[in-house]
């Protein structure tokens, strides 16, 4: 994990990003989490079903995209921070093999008692310049103890 960030050090306009590759083994691993609701043949692991549903290939589940963005934000928050909430919309399909840039753009900082809320826009950008995932998130960071 990266070193701890603090609310006091973040300003509107700050950005952070991370590169992600949607490799098929990673997607299959996600689908195989014990007790998964996404187990069994579907548009996420079967090219024929994906084609039948009008997709150019197997796609990455929306919830996995959200969970990957959550993980990126969790890294940003560090052990003393946390994600308050996140809300995203899925604008385009993400295909197996897609290379994505996960981005967060700080839009507001709201101080609190011993901690503060970092409000941000979040999105994925693919190699075609499209943004298949877009949304907003609140991350709670600790304040520096002076």
């Amino acid at each position: 994990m990266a070193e701890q960030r603090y609310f006091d050090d973040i300003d509107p306009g700050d950005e952070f990003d991370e590169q992600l590759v949607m490799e098929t083994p990673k997607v299959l691993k996600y689908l195989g989490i014990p007790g998964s609701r996404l187990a069994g043949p579907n548009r996420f692991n079967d090219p024929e079903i994906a084609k039948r549903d009008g997709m150019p290939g197997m796609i990455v589940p929306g919830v996995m995209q959200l969970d990957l963005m959550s993980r990126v934000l969790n890294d940003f928050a560090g052990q003393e921070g946390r994600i308050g909430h996140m809300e995203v919309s899925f604008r385009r399909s993400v295909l197996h093999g897609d290379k994505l840039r996960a981005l967060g753009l700080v839009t507001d900082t709201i101080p609190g008692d011993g901690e503060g809320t970092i409000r941000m826009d979040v999105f994925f950008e693919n190699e075609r310049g499209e943004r298949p995932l877009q949304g907003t998130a609140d991350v709670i960071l600790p304040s520096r103890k002076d």
Partner: protein
Amino acid sequence: MTADQVPGLTYDESVIGKEVEVGSFTVTAEQIAAYCEAVGETSPLHTDPEAAAKGPYGALTAPPGLVHAVQLERGLDAKIQFPGVAFHAGERIESLAPLRVGDTVTAYNQVKEVYAKTGRTGSMVFEVRRTEYRNQDGTPVVATETSFVRREV
């Protein structure tokens, strides 16, 4: 059944806002490990029991997104009649309290709303379902909202 302003759309308005239990599960270390490996999560709070025990929650906790991986019943059916394939349009997740190993979590689902939008490319119908996950003490730990869209073909 009710008909909205979009031709061809009907749905069962009586289910809107009615919460039903859709299943329960016990959080296991195995599930957490598999989830963390799949999404690349490395936080000791979720991956290292000893470090987590010394952390703010005193025990290994699950990332809230773990609830996405759990098999549940679907809940009430709004019986939406509208042509086209349904797609996952959006998702909201809110972390309300720590989700600890050994917690027994029960999920409650409702159809929050059904609404239509008409744009340049035609009409779309959205169904928003809210699920609240509560632990064995009845404390809400995670809430999600899932939007599905049906687009005219």
